[in-house]
């Protein structure tokens, strides 16, 4: 991995960008959000975002998806009307990354689609959409807000960023997500998978629970 070492503009603690694709990280010492500009770093905000939840993951957790190893580098925490979930950036090497969604014991790994379907004017639960020859059904349509971050991410996180997030599924545990914000339109394709299928290592300890 090509890494960049620097110091936190806020507290002076050493910080490191492990991936060439990483554009921002959080200082593990003071929680500041730090953005990378080639060889310099910029302090974006100093707000200790306490990820007070019971996630079993942390930066550095490794796993295997469809025979390929990955490491979780960081996450975004999103909120909608009725709850929160996390999207972990999973780095597979060779500048390739996927997103591991973690929502109430469900795990979905997805990758940005190279040939996304045409954007529709509206999305409703139950609606059928063809993506790459497969018919997906819209399960839910939610307005989401980015509320927090942790670790390294391949884009610059904006707290309070709002988007429309559409979850779709198809037989065979196929999963898709459409994310829309203004002119931004991204489609991610992947699968639902059982926690145990990933063979996770270096998991976070969950207070009060013993994981094998």
């Amino acid at each position, binding site marked *: 991995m090509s890494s960049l070492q620097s110091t936190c503009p806020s507290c002076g603690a050493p910080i490191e960008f492990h991936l060439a694709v990483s554009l921002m990280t959080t200082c593990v010492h003071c929680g500041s959000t730090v953005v990378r500009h080639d060889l310099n770093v910029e302090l974006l905000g100093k707000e200790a975002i306490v990820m007070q939840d019971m996630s079993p993951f942390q930066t550095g957790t490794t796993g295997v998806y469809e025979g390929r190893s990955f490491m979780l580098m960081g996450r975004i925490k999103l909120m909608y009307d009725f709850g929160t979930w996390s999207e972990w950036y999973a780095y597979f090497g060779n500048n390739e990354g996927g997103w591991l969604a973690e929502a109430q014991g*469900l795990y979905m790994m997805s990758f940005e689609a190279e040939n996304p379907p045409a954007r529709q004017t509206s999305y409703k639960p139950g609606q059928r959409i063809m993506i790459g020859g497969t018919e997906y*059904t819209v399960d839910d349509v939610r307005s989401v807000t980015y509320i927090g971050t942790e670790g390294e991410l391949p884009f610059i996180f904006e707290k309070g960023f709002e988007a429309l997030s559409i979850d779709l599924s198809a037989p065979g545990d196929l999963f898709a997500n459409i994310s829309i914000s203004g002119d931004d339109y991204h489609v991610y394709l992947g699968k639902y998978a059982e926690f145990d299928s990933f063979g996770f290592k270096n998991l976070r300890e969950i207070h009060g629970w013993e994981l094998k």
Partner: protein
Amino acid sequence: MAGNSSEIKPRFVKTFSCPNCGGTVDVRAPGHTLSAACIHCGSVISTSNENYQVIQKAKQQLTRLPLIPLGSRGALAGRTWEVIGFMVREDIQWHFEWEEYLLFNPVYGFRWLVQSAGHWTLVSAVTDKPDYKGGEKYFSYKGNKYEQFSTGAAKVNYVYGEFYWRVQVHDRTNVADFISPPFVLSLESDSEGRSWSIGEYVEPEAVQEAFQLKGKIPQKESIGINQPNPFKKRARRMWPVTAITVIAMVIMQAVFGLVTHREKVMEKEFSMFTPDSVFTTGPFVVGGRLNNLMVTLKAPLINAWLDVSLSLRDVTRNESQYASYPLSYYEGVEDGESWTEGSKELWKVMHNVRNGEHIIMIDAERGYDVQVSPMQPLFFTLVVERNVTSFSNFIIALVLILLPFLYNGIRSIIFEGGRYADQ
């Protein structure tokens, strides 16, 4: 596995004050659950952020305590679960109630443990949704055939503890159940959308052991909707062996019939002029591989009867076997319909007839229903055949082999009847 629950570290519980009554409310799955019912006043409070707004003010009386206390941990299906919520739901049409325990594990998420009339089912969310268009009586899902069992609507009567959605007392949803015991697929729908879940039957003893329930658990009443049918399982398990045995027997019987060439030993006609006569066949020799002899009696009777007692005598060994042939045949016309009764022919198989010289003695007696005078002579025929394939042993064996299978099959049908009886 169940033993783990006693070794668990201090529990992770977050608390806040109920905005309605000020009592302490526990949150056991922060970040995962969205609402909690205050155990003091019964109000439902939003836990999605730290403002703790009241979703529904005390609309219920906290009278029903869950049998498995909130905070209990137990191992089911190989994983440890903590009970964090409890609700009672009711079928709107038939007014029966059932209980649902919400189970939580920070890694595996949520499960429901449903208790209905003493039957328990462990339910999880379905991510790979069934290909169900709506209205089908049957459909396949992951190799099992599901049958629609019931459709209806359910409402929430009572909530206690925390939930991963904003639960409210009186919430209504449409529910359709499809069964393939021990599994049940449920489709719940409301204006917001629809969701599938899959449940698997759990024996009450497994629940009792998992959560170390000291007290009594509800007795099983009738048959659970997804309770496995033990007779069907047994009948299914027996089916291949039974089928193979029956096929093998039929083949053996057929081969036997082919290789054993039936051979006529003797055929003789007797003339009978009086009501009683005694005849003898004279000595005849039998040989061959099978130790049986089929003796057939044929008489051209019309509205008459013939009773014959045979004695088959093994001349060499000086042994005898006996058989009787009560033969009668009647016919007539009644109300424009012709009828017949009895037969003009009867055969019997004598066993253990060894090779050698034999003789048959015949003691015959005959009569008419309506006395005809003078008596007509009767010519009857006796046919003796060797190497007859016996069907009696075959039939007895067949019945014995099929009996356990039929027994379980019938019990299975009765069991399935019971499953539907209470709906």
